[in-house]
């Protein structure tokens, strides 16, 4: 029972991290029509930037500063390169970001080396957020933080303690806060309305005196900044290495794909992310639960890595506008 809860929460937190990534991707895609192939590269830049900055000024300032820098780099890329190929159509735009992903990967290896760097979360986030205690007599209970002496108390038989890491909890909290504020900005503020209008009626928005190319630049900066934020959190929770972009890249693409052409439906991305990752988490659960049966264990744990891709392809074929997207005409 506690295993199911913890692994569900773990799955959810990873899903929410991917959601943070894909919300930036979806933002850029639905606003500008640009499928940003280098999005995961900005995620990686955020992680490495966060790593370097947290060594200089501490984790919490880095958490703010690294996404800002990543966003600024993204905006600069849009200004210098993406805007130039905008006239050629969407495929060259995709190709430009594809080329950028090569360059960023090589630059990261150039600056930070080819092996993983040790990006530690701050002391506050180290250790468990809460601990589930399965006591043979008193049943299931939970305490904030580490359980301490409760787990080592063996007078009443085996006590099973399942800690939930604080970093994972932090991932979930940040993602939820970001989802809320993003939705609020886009749907409830004047800026958000102008951004939405710039997508559907660029000429009209321009006629009203707004600088549409600059709006696009800011949107791109915002999207890559979100990727940078996800990078700082993901890098400190998981691992910061040159392969990290490739690991999350196609997965983040999966969620975007389920939302093709749709407007910003951030809640839909969240559902997609969770469903996908829940599947992966459930795959793990099954494999461990059926540890006695080696055949079941083998197949389920082997199939688990391809489930997201399978789901991606299926969603793209049957619901290209996302699980909660509008129906195709």
């Amino acid at each position, binding site marked *: 029972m506690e295993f199911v809860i913890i692994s569900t929460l773990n799955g959810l937190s990873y899903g929410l991290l991917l959601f943070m990534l894909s919300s930036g991707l979806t933002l850029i895609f639905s606003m500008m029509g640009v499928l940003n192939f280098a999005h995961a590269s900005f995620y990686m830049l955020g992680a490495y930037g966060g790593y370097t900055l947290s060594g200089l000024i501490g984790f919490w300032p880095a958490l703010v500063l690294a996404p800002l820098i990543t966003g600024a780099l993204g905006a600069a890329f849009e200004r210098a*390169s993406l805007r130039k190929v905008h006239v050629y159509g969407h495929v060259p735009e995709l190709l430009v970001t594809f080329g950028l992903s090569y360059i960023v990967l*090589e630059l990261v290896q*150039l600056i930070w080396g*080819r092996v993983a760097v040790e990006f530690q979360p701050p002391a506050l986030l180290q250790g468990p957020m809460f601990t589930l205690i399965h006591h043979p007599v008193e049943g299931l209970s939970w305490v904030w933080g580490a359980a301490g002496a409760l787990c080592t108390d063996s007078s009443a038989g085996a006590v099973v303690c399942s800690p939930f890491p604080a970093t994972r909890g932090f991932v979930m909290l940040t993602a939820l806060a970001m989802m809320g504020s993003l939705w609020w900005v886009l749907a409830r503020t004047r800026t958000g309305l102008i951004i939405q209008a710039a997508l559907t009626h660029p000429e009209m928005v321009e006629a009203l005196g707004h600088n549409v190319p600059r709006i696009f630049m800011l949107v791109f900066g915002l999207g890559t900044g979100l990727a940078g934020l996800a990078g700082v959190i993901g890098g400190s929770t998981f691992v910061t290495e040159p392969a990290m972009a490739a690991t999350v890249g196609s997965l983040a693409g999966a969620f975007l*794909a389920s939302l*093709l052409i749709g407007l910003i439906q951030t809640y839909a991305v969240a559902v997609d992310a969770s469903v996908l990752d829940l599947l992966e988490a459930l795959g793990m659960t099954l494999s461990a639960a059926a540890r006695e049966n080696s055949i079941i264990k083998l197949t389920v744990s082997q199939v688990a890595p*391809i489930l997201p891709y399978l789901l991606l392809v299926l969603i793209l074929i049957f619901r290209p506008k996302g699980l909660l997207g509008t129906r195709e005409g």
Partner: protein
Amino acid sequence: MSRAVYAFEPYNVGRWIIWSLFAMVLLAAPWVFKSNLAHSMLSQMGIAMIACLAYNLLLGQGGMLSFGHAVYTGLGGYLAMHALNAVSAGSLSLPVSLIPLVGGAGGLFFACLLGYVTTRKSGTTFAMITLGMAELVSAMSLMFSEFFGGEAGVSGNRVAGTPFMGINFGPQIQVYYLIALYTFVCVALLFAFTRTPLGRILNAVRDNPERVEFIGYNTQHVRYFAFMIAGFFSGIAGGLGALNFEIVTAEVVGAARSGAYLLFTFLGGATFFFGPIIGAILMILASVLLSELTKAWLLYLGLVFLFMVMYAPGGMASLIMMNLRVASFGHLRRLWVAYVGLGVLAVIALLSAGAWIEMVYHLQLNSALGPTLKFAGMTLDALSVRSWFGAGFVLVTALGLFELARRQYRRDWDEIQVQIEQEIKRREAL
């Protein structure tokens, strides 16, 4: 487009000349470049040509941006390798020279299977589905070790069956001529395909799918057929690769390979038929020679690609064709000084930027070997300020001069284009 340029009627002399030249180059190449490395590279170039041209059937002719082309070359390669092993074991009676066709059949089969779902959509959705398929297959390649051979891959021996007229495909040169023959036939067939009604309607599907639907074609079927044909030729390339390397590992279906096909097809030029041939040659040169020369080759490649997309989206082929047009109107002599100047400045800028990049890489990877490194005949000290400042100074100067020269060149170029337009109008009026 280049189409109209060589269309002499009724007997197309230009085309005969070009194809005979191509055949002669294929025949003579191993006698000009005689080393073992050169033979191996020429073989790889032939294979890459087929793969890139098949890929361009999708990208250039059909407007389908595929991120999973290596799936079809790779799976074709695996099937060819299994067929080769069956021939070696004696359970299959097939001449080794026909093994690539088994790969082609495999590519066709998987394109038939996976392409049905892939080609239901076009544009970005198509790109995403191919990406998903590529990830799916490369994830599976480590799961089913009976077929894919796990980490080690599947290896075989191409000297199998009875030799035909003393040809047993042991020496590399024999394999090269087999590959050259396949390359010539496949290139010719792929060119012929662009002239068929299906090839033409594929171009129409790329340019205006809505109108194609109006005149009664099913765009989905057209894409599907094109996808299967591309899959067949990719499979042949994969099968030739299996014969050439005698080993097939999981990386042939990997995302990096798919990315390389996309990158080099585009660099060569997706809008012209012969563009991918240039791309394939560049691909082998870069991945064999450039990767030997510097560890940062992917960085250079990415930069070149980025600038190519930004400034010459037609690739190398379009640059060649534009200059041919200028030459055919007799204006090239006005530009060659600019080309020499731009070229020299670009080389200087690249060298000094390269010096920086190589010094950083040296500090990252080889700092145990001491601070000095050799670069372009110079010895640089990666720890002294002088090397960094010197390279930076040269870089800034070269870039500044390059920008000045580029502006002058741009003015000349635009002027010449205007003159050519006027000349064309004048000739029409005659």
